[in-house]
């Protein structure tokens, strides 16, 4: 080996790593300790230990305190520091930078020979290029020689800078944690040890617990004895044992607060706290009171239940139509109303609408698109053909973009109401007369006593009198109260003949059960007789009480109004006209807000008085309210107002309301201002405090986020990712989050809210987000803007929550509430003690009480004194859980009017089935009731009228049962109403007539065709007299028969005359026929006997006689037939025969008798018919002789016989004078004959075709004719074929 380092030969310097090498290589001869060979044993031993120790060690040796150290110590000197130069240096040099610390220590060790021990001592060290604060835990121990003299000091040390800093940080954290807990807006507390000693509890906790700060330091168990039977202690114990965080949602806790056991709902977290060793030493409890939310939600549920009950009880059909997808959801009631047992398709609902109402429906829908409200009534035709009236209400929902979203509607069957109205109308119609129906009151009075001659309904209503009491009496007997005012006026008109006009004449009338002032516009017109004398006065009265009172009320209201403004403790002012001239401003306004004197502002233009407003939003708002007439309200709006004492910033709750003049035009604005500056500022401070600790909310369900406005970098809590449907640890950018917002909401809600936040500092919105799985969730975001020193927006901090469930709940409640609110029926709910808990718009309309007036008040307020007992009865029934439906009673309005109402009440039950209240539906049936009374009155009148008529009058219901018979009927029959209704009118019908009567009656009831019959009724003395009875159905608008009105007229005399006439004709024809028989017989016999003789005169004479006899016979037969037809006694003797045979027979016979025409029979078929052969022959003879008679210039009649499947068809064609078009419809009438200049040519009774028609009809056949003037005629007869 070449040159050896000087110290290597010493065994005590072996090993020791870098420092060992450095120590060996060091030339110690230049140091205070000299050559290692001279080192004493104690130094050698110490160095041997030092260099090989893993503990950091430093040795000061000898009087110079020469420095040695080992590898373990080496890092404490850092880089670029004293190492390795310090090796072998005297301490004073080597530790120059901390000599003031080290020197006393060394001195003490050297002098006393005692060891020193220090922990975490700050000894700055020059290392890493600069002086660093380094903390040390170390010992200085003396090293003594054999003599016990201290020769050196060994420093065993460890650098604790890391630990010290960590501890410092820990302490700081602990402080932070404590302040976090103490200042948290949610309740936060720390329980230490397994005994859960309350170490910390913030104010929110104390408030939640209902305890004060004295509980700190005591155990949970001791402080909350009431938790003994509740799960919380057990949960705490588990968290403490397992370290698993427990989250409680809407947990119920019973806490003894303020002397009573309260039920509280809380969201809370128990989180284990650990010491530096990770051992659990306590629990952090955080939570907040959600009792209000739960209660609200329960109330919403109750509201929902209540509304649902209301709707069901009200027999309302409900549907909801999604206008985007056209999907419709119907309640069961819908199809029930439509008369179906199963749900119908949406198209069916439309198809069932009455065709006449479809256009109206389309109009209603068109209007609804403008107004958002669908309201119309229409008819539907049910499957059984019946017609029902439907009342339809719906509300249309638009989204923010104005597009249609959905329609929620209700329908109700209002057929009964409609029918009622129809009945009213019809009854009224019966008694209408022009004067009587005039809408103004008309009364005619005669003579100086003013005896009422006529008074129309309107007048009678004005004075609240019945016609019977009023007409025929002196006016002032009936209306003494108006005599003083009216008598001089009337007398003057009567005396002078000059009409008197008065407007708004005030008289006091005693009507409707009380004296009340009434105002009339009047005309008193003299009534003149034909000789010009004045006989009386006509008064035309138009009542204007309503208008006049309204006018008074308006004036009064105006006066009250200014008074109210001036005396209000709330700042108020009225600005008139579009220029906003300040008309009135009250003290509060002047002193507190404007801080100006009245003279400075009154009568001036507001915007000139307050020029500073120009830079604020208010002028635009004023203009908007003024032009759009919409009240504008705003809360906590910032306003700067320049008062006499300078500019001041206010937070104001204010309202601008338009004031309308009597023409409904805006004439000014009323401005109401409430200074809430103090309140707002106080709250803002509070909010700031809350803001700092928003993180505390994290554990309790809120996601938090912090958005850098400049960079759009967002920091958020893991829960936010969950809210957006991602895993907790998902990394999302602000842009990504934005993109997850529903596109519509992003554009219409979130972006505007963000813009607004940058202006107002407040960020708040509710919007939908789309989760990656496609589901839609509602979120609610709240945030606050923070500014940098330059007042530039810097950060937006906020929280976010998933409110999907809440939204869904709200949606249902909202929908039901819409229905309830839009109902025409008052729907209210009450507690079982009668306290009102809800009150809808219809209730306001019906009773005039507002919601504010009624909620919390007793429902008894609506009940008339005489109905109280009844109401108690109802409540008793409700308590038993009974439902009450369509109960008719009366209720009082605010202005003490009594309404007739129909009540439906359903009990409301709590979860355990106890009745806790009721949902009431009240329908105003006053009009209906009034209508019923009116109908009754009219009916009485009608009965009176009917009873006094000499005719029989009676009515049937639509089933044909006798419902009424007038007194005349009863007197005739000698029966009471009861007797007659019991066995019907049939009991007085002659037994021989009853079969036919029954047939006619059944036919009419079945077909609705008028009932017309002659029959005999038994008189009280047993005599039957002939009656002509008629009944006509009365139909409703839809054409359904409501009733039958019948009359019977005594035709006994006429009938007897007819019988005599009939008998006479029968007798006459018989007596006429007898001589004719003889004559005819002889002529025919003679013709046969002289057939072969050549005497042409004899032959032709006989021919002529035969022809005339034929005509005479036919005349007699026809006359008789007409009589038979008229009396209905034409009877048929039916037999089956071939009509062609009859046709041929008659044709032949006629040809021989008449000889002028050839009758050509063209037989195309041989139909067999079942008919009266003689009658058919008569038809043929009539048709043939007619054809011959009316075709004097022709020589042929063509008869054809055809048949089809059902009928035989016979035609008779002539080539004669034809028939004028206007005569065609009449030729089958009795005694009708073709008239004109040729009349004389065609004599006859004009009964031939009448008889033909009758006979054909009796055979269920048809006859018709085609003809033109001068072109002949073609008669068609069709008869059914025999089967």
């Amino acid at each position, binding site marked *: 080996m070449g040159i050896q380092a000087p110290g290597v030969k010493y065994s005590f310097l072996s090993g020791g790593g870098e420092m060992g090498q450095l120590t060996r290589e060091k030339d110690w001869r230049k140091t205070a300790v000299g050559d290692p060979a001279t080192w004493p044993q104690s130094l050698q031993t110490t160095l041997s230990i030092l260099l090989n120790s893993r503990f950091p060690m430093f040795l000061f040796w000898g009087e110079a305190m020469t420095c040695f150290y080992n590898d373990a110590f080496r890092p404490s000197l850092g880089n670029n520091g004293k190492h390795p130069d310090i090796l072998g240096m005297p301490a004073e040099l080597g530790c120059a930078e901390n000599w003031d610390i080290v020197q006393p220590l060394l001195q003490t060790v050297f002098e006393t020979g005692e060891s020193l021990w220090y922990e975490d001592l700050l000894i700055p060290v020059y290392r890493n290029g600069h002086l660093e604060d380094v903390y040390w835990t170390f010992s200085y121990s003396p090293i003594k020689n054999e003599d016990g003299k201290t020769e050196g000091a060994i420093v065993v040390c460890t650098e604790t800078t890391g630990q010290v800093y960590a501890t410092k940080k820990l302490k700081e954290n602990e402080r932070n944690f404590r302040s976090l807990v103490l200042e948290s807006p949610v309740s936060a507390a720390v329980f230490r040890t397994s005994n859960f000693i309350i170490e910390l509890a913030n104010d929110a906790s104390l408030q939640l617990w209902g305890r004060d700060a004295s509980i700190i330091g005591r155990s949970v168990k001791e402080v909350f004895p009431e938790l003994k039977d509740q799960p919380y202690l057990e949960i705490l114990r588990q968290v403490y044992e397992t370290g698993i965080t427990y989250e409680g949602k809407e947990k119920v806790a019973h806490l003894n607060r303020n002397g009573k056991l309260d039920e509280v709902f809380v969201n809370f977290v128990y989180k284990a706290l650990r010491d530096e060793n990770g051992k659990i030493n306590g629990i952090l409890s955080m939570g907040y009171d959600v009792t209000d939310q739960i209660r609200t939600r329960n109330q919403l549920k109750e509201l929902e239940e209540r509304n649902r009950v209301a709707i069901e009880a009200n027999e309302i059909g409900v549907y909801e139509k999604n206008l985007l997808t056209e999907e419709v959801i119907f309640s069961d009631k819908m199809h029930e109303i439509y008369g179906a047992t199963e749900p119908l398709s949406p198209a069916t609902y439309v198809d069932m609408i009455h065709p006449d109402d479809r256009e109206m429906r389309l109009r209603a829908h068109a209007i609804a698109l403008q107004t958002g409200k669908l309201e119309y009534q229409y008819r539907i035709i049910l499957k059984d053909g019946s017609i029902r009236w439907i009342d339809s209400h719906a509300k249309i929902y638009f989204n923010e973009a104005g597009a249609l979203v959905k329609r929620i509607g209700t329908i109700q069957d209002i057929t009964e109401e409609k029918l009622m109205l129809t009945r009213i109308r019809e009854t009224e119609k019966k008694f209408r007369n022009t004067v009587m129906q005039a809408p103004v009151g008309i009364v005619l009075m005669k003579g100086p006593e003013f005896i009422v001659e006529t008074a129309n309904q309107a007048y009678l209503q004005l004075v609240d009198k019945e016609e019977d009491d009023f007409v025929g009496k002196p006016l002032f007997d009936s209306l003494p109260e108006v005599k003083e005012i009216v008598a001089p006026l009337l007398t003057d008109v009567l005396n002078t003949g000059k009409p008197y006009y008065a407007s708004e004449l005030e008289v006091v009338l005693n009507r409707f059960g009380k004296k009340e002032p009434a105002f009339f516009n009047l005309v008193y017109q003299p009534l003149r007789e034909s000789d010009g004398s004045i006989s009386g006065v006509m008064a035309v009265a138009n009542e204007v009480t309503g208008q006049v009172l309204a006018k008074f009320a308006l004036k009064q209201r105006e006066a009250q109004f200014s008074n109210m403004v001036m005396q209000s403790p709330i700042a108020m002012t009225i600005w008139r006209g579009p220029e906003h001239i300040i008309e009135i401003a009250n003290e509060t306004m002047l002193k507190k807000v404007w801080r100006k004197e009245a003279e400075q502002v009154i009568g001036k233009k507001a915007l000139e008085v307050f020029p500073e407003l120009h830079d604020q939003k208010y002028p635009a708002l004023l203009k908007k309210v003024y032009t759009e007439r919409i009240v504008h309200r705003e809360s906590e709006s910032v306003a700067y107002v320049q008062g006499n004492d300078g500019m001041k910033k206010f937070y104001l709750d204010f309202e601008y309301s338009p004031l309308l003049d009597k023409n409904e035009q805006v004439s000014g604005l009323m401005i109401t201002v409430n200074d809430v500056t103090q309140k707002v500022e106080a709250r803002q401070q509070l909010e700031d405090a809350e803001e700092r600790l928003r993180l505390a909310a994290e554990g309790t369900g809120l996601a938090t986020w912090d958005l850098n406005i400049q960079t759009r970098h967002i920091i958020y809590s893991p829960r936010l990712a969950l809210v957006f449907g991602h895993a907790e640890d998902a990394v999302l950018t602000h842009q990504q989050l934005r993109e997850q917002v529903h596109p519509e909401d992003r554009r219409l809600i979130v972006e505007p809210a963000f813009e607004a936040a940058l202006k107002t500092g407040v960020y708040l919105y509710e919007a939908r987000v789309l989760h990656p799985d496609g589901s839609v969730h509602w979120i609610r975001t709240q945030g606050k803007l923070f500014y940098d020193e330059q007042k530039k927006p810097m950060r937006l901090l906020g929280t976010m929550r998933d409110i999907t469930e809440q939204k869904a709940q709200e949606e249902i409640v909202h929908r039901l509430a819409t229905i309830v609110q839009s109902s025409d029926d008052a729907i209210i709910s009450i507690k079982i003690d009668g306290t009102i808990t809800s009150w809808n718009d219809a209730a306001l309309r019906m009773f005039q009480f507002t919601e504010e007036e009624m909620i919390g008040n007793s429902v008894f307020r609506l009940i008339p004194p005489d109905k109280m007992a009844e109401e108690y009865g109802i409540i008793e029934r409700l308590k038993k859980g009974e439902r009450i439906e369509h109960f008719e009673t009366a209720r009082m309005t605010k202005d003490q009017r009594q309404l007739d109402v129909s009540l439906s009440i359903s009990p409301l039950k709590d979860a355990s089935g106890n009745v806790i209240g009721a949902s009431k539906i009240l329908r105003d049936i006053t009009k209906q009731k009034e209508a019923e009374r009116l109908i009754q009155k009219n009916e009485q009148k009608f009965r009176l009228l009917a009873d006094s008529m000499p005719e029989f009058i009676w009515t049937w219901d639509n089933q044909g049962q006798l419902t009424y018979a007038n007194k005349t009927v009863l007197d005739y029959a000698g029966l009471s109403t009861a007797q007659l209704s019991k066995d019907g009118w049939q009991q007085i019908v002659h037994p021989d007539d009853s079969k036919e009567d029954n047939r006619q009656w059944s036919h009419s009831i079945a077909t609705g065709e008028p009932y017309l019959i002659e029959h005999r009724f038994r008189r009280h003395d047993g005599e039957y007299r002939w009656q002509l009875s008629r009944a006509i159905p009365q139909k409703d608008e839809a054409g359904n028969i409501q009733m039958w009105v019948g009359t019977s007229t005594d035709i006994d005399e006429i009938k007897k005359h007819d019988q005599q006439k009939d008998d006479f004709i*029968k007798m006459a*024809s018989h007596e006429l026929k*007898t001589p*004719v*028989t003889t*004559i005819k*017989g002889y002529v025919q*016999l003679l013709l046969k006997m002289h057939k072969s003789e050549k005497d042409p005169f004899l032959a032709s004479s006989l021919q002529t006689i035969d022809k005339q006899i034929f005509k005479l016979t036919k005349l007699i037969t026809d006359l008789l037939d007409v009589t038979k037809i008229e009396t209905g006694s034409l009877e048929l*003797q039916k037999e089956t025969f071939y009509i062609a045979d009859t046709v041929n027979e008659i044709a032949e016979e006629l040809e021989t008798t008449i000889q002028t025409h050839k009758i050509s029979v063209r037989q195309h078929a041989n139909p067999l018919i079942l008919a009266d052969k003689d009658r058919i022959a008569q038809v043929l003879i009539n048709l043939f002789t007619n054809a011959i008679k009316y075709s004097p210039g022709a020589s042929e009649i063509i008869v054809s016989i055809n048949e089809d499947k059902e009928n035989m068809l016979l035609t008779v064609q002539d080539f004669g004078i034809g028939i004028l078009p206007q005569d065609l419809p009449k030729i089958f009438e009795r005694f009708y004959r073709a008239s004109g200049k040729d009349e004389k040519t065609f004599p006859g009774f004009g009964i031939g075709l009448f008889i033909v028609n009758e006979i054909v009809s009796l055979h269920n056949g048809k006859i018709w004719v085609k003809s033109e003037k001068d072109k002949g005629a073609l008669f068609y007869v069709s008869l059914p074929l025999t089967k």
Partner: protein
Amino acid sequence: MNTREQVDIILLDDDKDICVMVQAMLNFSGYKVQSLSLPHQLNELLVSLTPRMLLMDMLLSGTDGRDVCRRLKNDADTRHIKIMMMSAHPDADRSCREAGADDFISKPFDMDQFIAKVKSQLAF
């Protein structure tokens, strides 16, 4: 007066002119006729005479031809005699047939039709 064996038809009508006229028609057509104008004469005549046919007006003075008809048709001895009734009365046809008449002709009648009816009745 013809002997009983030679009489085809007994004619009964209270109108003597009609009796004579109808008898002339029947005689002209080759029938032997005994005519009566009083109903009670019929009973007497029928004791000694059995005609093939009785031709009778419905309404005879004091007697209803239908009663006569019913009586003859109910009597086994006379049931075989064809009875044809006649009348100018409007509704006589059916009631005569109901009374048992074999045929009916309404007055006034056409000679050819009348003879045809008689011929047809006597053909059986």
